[in-house]
């Protein structure tokens, strides 16, 4: 039994496949075999499968069209070993146990998390060579021999590029590959696609490390790796993609690029059919025809649009192949596969003779070659249409990047080699290297043909003249678009969607420009091409995310007390990168019940919370007081050592930016606190002014957020608890007044105790060095248990502060709110000549009486807790839209102390609406609320001294 059983189109010998490694796979529920070294596409063709899906818009059968990453049709769903959508069969290396399915143009996302690892590496080099074909190998070897640090990246599993699909220089490719692999300063990245070229020669590549091993991929290796490469010089040896041309029925399975068919025959030992017609506008398809004929495929005819094809045609005729100069294909037949090809005489855009039909199961086309310049264009390189070559070529780039070989429009192996070594020698100032002598065959000029007219017999106009196979865009679609007056390729692209598919128009982009130029009677050089954007080929989000998933997605910051919180059942909330205890449910308590209990403890007994996440900035220097006076709205220079002042910072536009307390530690030293989420932003803001506007101020800023841990102790019993633990501290209200700080020992631990209250209750903030925090906390907890000491979280903190009308910056403010809007005119100095925001506060707009003010809002039904963000309107019936909005609710909670739901909100002219009834639209109902003072609890402030 032959190893090629079940592979009727596999040649008995040849190719770069490993016939001793047969692989089994499934496609659309049928079993097939292939060999190691196959792609899914070559294995399917060996099994006689052309049709690989259905087109997205028209539902027409489509088949394998290309042999590389430019494939527009064979885009498949991989089902096993792990589901992945939209992979091109031409780039999926075959492995044992692969299960794939055809798609109607759209894939399905996996329904489970990807178990594979992905990672990333950074790399720097003197020279990055993209593409390991002849020009790329010559360039890399040149730089390597000069001792330069070189990275050579190629998307294929083996080096050689176009040489893998030809019969030239087999020994040289292998030798250079071995030399590069052994060179100490050279990194050869196989299976690696460079997909993005950004500023300053920063390039991204994805290396597929274990995909080709299928289920046998070792779990400890990353499946794909993103390379972030910074290169001093870049050489793009990215080759060229063949393009098709637009003729009737050019989308049937069995229509294939001529170069792709050659690749299948030479590299994979697969003939994609039995009897082929070849349609070409240039010489390159003759090499394909000759190779395929040598492989046993019958060439029915080479149809050449050129009236005088030249020497290649003579060689074909000598090989017994019929050549039809001045002809073109005008149609194909076949239900799910080409069965016949119709050919007619052609000259200068017109049909010149009646049609003739060839029986064939394969139609190979070559409409010319497009240099692969996606990366060059992404790098900012200009492209120019070369009329002689019939393609876009590089035309200069501000970055240190050069395209060589067929990417530069240089076709011919000898010239590609020479160009590669010359470019590398230029880039790193070295000498070119000796190369195998290779004389390029004399070539005859191509002619540009983009559209072949249909015959009247078809009667389908241009509706089967496909331009973009993946988006089902036809000449008729482009005709309609240009007829509608769209004259730029960018507009045509967006109107017709040509070039917007998964393949990003690799085979269709220039054809689209060419057909549009033809329709508009313009020159393609004037129309140009659409802008290329990364990525060159689709990249999975998993690869881009790398290891930054799950717990590693963003740094997690925890306080020194985190373990205690977790052990005591805290539910955490994210505040920036911090994990903060939100509430501590006991015995299956609901959140609401837990928060009510924690609130009662703070108001009636004693409670404590971990406030370590507050931002803390140490401000030192002889000019520290002056500096703070300029940034805070109130006066800080008059603060006495040992005392604390609440302060608000505004931006220059007068809007509240942050708030916190400032403690004067010494004449030249302050400790400023910030909100948890704004700590970094406040430090940056301070540095900005210090460095850029006030460099003469002698001030130094240091973040000490993580050096200090802070425990807030609140409630009428807090003094008693603290006194017991801090025997040296005089805790009576006279000795230790509100807004004072004292250095002492608490539970034997050196501590700075501040009389600060964010709840309105008698309260302290105990600051200790971070590593002492657990000891302090444990001591407090042990001593406080008999008093009913209760840990509380951020939700209770929010309720307590809201009952007192204390705003949270970023929740009750949104960047359009002044301190005056918050009812905090008292924190804005009238004496200082200037402070950040003062001029803006003097603007007429800032003084309007109908600005939005922070007010309290009491639902008429005390059981109601309104959703935050709810709008507020005036009447009990909604008028026709647009409904005037008076404001919105910024904070809303249930209050244990008030025994009702309550809210804070920003309301237009709110302070002049006290007692007024407004309405909050919630779920189709208008909920009545009454405007009140934002200070709903203890408005006299009687409780803060205990």
């Amino acid at each position: 039994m032959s190893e090629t059983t079940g592979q009727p189109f596999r040649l008995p010998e040849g190719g770069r496949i490993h016939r001793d490694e047969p692989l089994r796979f499934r496609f659309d529920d049928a079993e097939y075999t292939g060999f190691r070294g196959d792609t899914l596409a070559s294995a399917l063709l060996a099994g006689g499968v052309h049709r690989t899906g259905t087109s997205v818009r028209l539902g027409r059968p489509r088949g394998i069209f290309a042999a590389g990453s430019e494939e527009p049709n064979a885009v498949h769903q991989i089902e096993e070993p792990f589901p992945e959508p939209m992979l091109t069969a031409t780039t999926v290396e075959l492995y044992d146990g692969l299960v794939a399915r055809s798609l109607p143009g759209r894939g399905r996302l996996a329904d489970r998390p990807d178990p594979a690892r992905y990672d990333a590496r950074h790399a720097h080099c003197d020279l990055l060579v993209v593409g390991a074909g002849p020009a790329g190998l010559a360039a890399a070897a040149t730089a390597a021999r000069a001792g330069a640090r070189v990275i050579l990246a190629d998307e294929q599993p083996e080096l050689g590029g176009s040489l893998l699909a030809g019969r030239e220089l087999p020994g040289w490719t292998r030798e250079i590959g071995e030399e590069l692999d052994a060179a100490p300063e050279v990194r050869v990245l196989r299976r690696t696609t460079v997909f993005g070229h950004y500023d300053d020669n920063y390039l991204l590549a994805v290396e597929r490390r274990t995909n080709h091993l299928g289920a046998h991929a070792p779990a400890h290796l990353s499946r794909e790796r993103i390379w972030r490469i910074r290169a001093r010089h870049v050489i793009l040896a990215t080759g060229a993609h063949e393009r098709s041309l637009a003729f009737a029925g050019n989308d049937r399975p069995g229509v294939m690029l001529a170069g792709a068919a050659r690749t299948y025959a030479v590299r994979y030992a697969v003939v994609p059919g039995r009897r082929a017609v070849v349609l070409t506008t240039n010489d390159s398809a003759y090499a394909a025809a000759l190779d395929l004929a040598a492989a046993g495929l019958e060439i029915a005819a080479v149809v050449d649009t050129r009236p005088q094809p030249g020497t290649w045609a003579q060689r074909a005729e000598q090989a017994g192949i019929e050549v039809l100069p001045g002809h073109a294909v005008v149609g194909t037949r076949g239900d799910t596969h080409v069965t016949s090809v119709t050919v007619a005489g052609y000259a200068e855009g017109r049909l010149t003779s009646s049609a003739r039909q060839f029986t064939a199961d394969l139609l190979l086309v070559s409409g010319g070659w497009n240099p692969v310049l996606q990366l060059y264009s992404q790098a900012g390189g200009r492209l120019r249409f070369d009329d002689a070559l019939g393609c876009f070529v590089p035309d200069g780039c501000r970055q240190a990047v050069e395209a060589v070989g067929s990417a530069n429009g240089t076709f011919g192996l000898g010239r590609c080699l020479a160009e590669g070594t010359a470019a590398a020698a230029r880039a790193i100032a070295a000498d070119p290297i000796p190369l195998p002598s290779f004389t390029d065959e004399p070539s005859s000029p191509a002619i540009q043909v983009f559209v072949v007219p249909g015959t009247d017999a078809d009667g389908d106009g241009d509706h089967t003249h496909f331009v973009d196979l993946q988006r089902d865009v036809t000449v008729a679609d482009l005709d309609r678009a240009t007829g509608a007056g769209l004259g730029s390729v960018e507009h045509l692209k967006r109107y017709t969607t040509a070039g917007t598919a998964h393949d990003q128009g690799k085979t269709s982009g220039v054809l689209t420009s060419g057909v549009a130029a033809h329709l508009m009677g313009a020159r393609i050089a004037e129309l140009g091409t659409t802008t290329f954007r990364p990525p060159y080929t689709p990249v999975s989000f998993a690869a881009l995310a790398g290891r930054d998933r799950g717990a590693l997605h963003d740094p997690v910051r925890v306080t020194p007390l985190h373990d205690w919180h977790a052990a005591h059942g805290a539910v955490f909330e994210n505040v920036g990168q911090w994990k903060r205890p939100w509430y501590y449910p006991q015995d299956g308590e609901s959140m609401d019940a837990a928060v009510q209990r924690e609130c009662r403890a703070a108001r009636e007994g004693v409670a404590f919370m971990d406030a370590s996440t507050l931002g803390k900035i140490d401000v030192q220097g002889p000019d520290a007081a002056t500096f703070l006076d300029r940034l805070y709205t109130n006066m800080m220079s008059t603060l006495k050592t040992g005392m604390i002042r609440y302060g608000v910072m505004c931006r220059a536009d007068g809007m509240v930016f942050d708030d916190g307390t400032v403690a004067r530690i010494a004449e030249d030293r302050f400790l400023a606190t910030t909100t948890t989420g704004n700590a970094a932003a406040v430090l940056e803001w301070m540095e900005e002014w210090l460095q850029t506007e006030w460099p003469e101020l002698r001030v130094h800023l240091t973040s000490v957020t993580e050096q200090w841990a802070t425990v807030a102790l609140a409630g009428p019993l807090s003094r008693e608890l603290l006194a017991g633990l801090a025997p040296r501290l005089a805790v009576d209200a006279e000795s230790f007044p509100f807004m004072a700080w004292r250095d002492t020992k608490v539970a034997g631990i050196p501590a700075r105790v501040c009389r600060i209250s964010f709840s309105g209750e008698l309260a302290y903030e105990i600051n200790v060095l971070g590593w002492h925090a657990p000891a302090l906390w444990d001591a407090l907890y042990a001593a406080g248990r008999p008093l009913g000491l209760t840990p509380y979280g951020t939700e209770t903190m929010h309720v307590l502060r809201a009952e007192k009308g204390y705003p949270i910056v970023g929740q009750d403010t949104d960047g359009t709110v002044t301190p005056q809007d918050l009812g905090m005119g008292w924190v804005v100095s009238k004496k200082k000549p200037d402070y950040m925001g003062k001029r803006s506060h003097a603007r007429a707009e800032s003084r309007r009486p109908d600005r939005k003010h922070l007010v309290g809002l009491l639902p008429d039904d005390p059981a109601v807790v309104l959703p935050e963000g709810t709008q507020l309107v005036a009447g009990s019936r909604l008028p026709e839209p647009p409904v005037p909005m008076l404001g919105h609710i910024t904070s809303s909670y249930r209050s244990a102390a008030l025994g009702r739901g309550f809210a804070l909100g920003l309301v237009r002219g709110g302070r002049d609406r006290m007692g007024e009834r407004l309405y909050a639209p919630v779920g189709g109902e208008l909920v009545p609320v009454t405007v009140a003072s934002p200070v709903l609890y203890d408005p006299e402030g009687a409780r803060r001294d205990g």
Partner: protein
Amino acid sequence: MLLIPCPWCGPRDEAEYTYGGQAHVPYPQDPASLPDEEWGRYLFHRANPKGPHAERWCHTAGCRRWFNAVRDTATNQLLAVYRAGEPRLAGGEANGRDLFA
């Protein structure tokens, strides 16, 4: 991603920096004396040239220093960098010089 030569640390990836908008927009000497219009101009009006643009950058994830740079907004190329307080550069000074050498 740009490679930005911090005048203190040398060339580093753009991701280490914060952009700070147009450079050389000084805080007014006496804001109180300015009419609303002029104050508004200081707050909100910035040049948006196509070509060389003097702008501020901060090496946030490095030395935390603010400095000035001239960048061509049409090509995204950095033409010059200089420390805060140093004389303003137009960018032409850097022509032909390798910023990263």
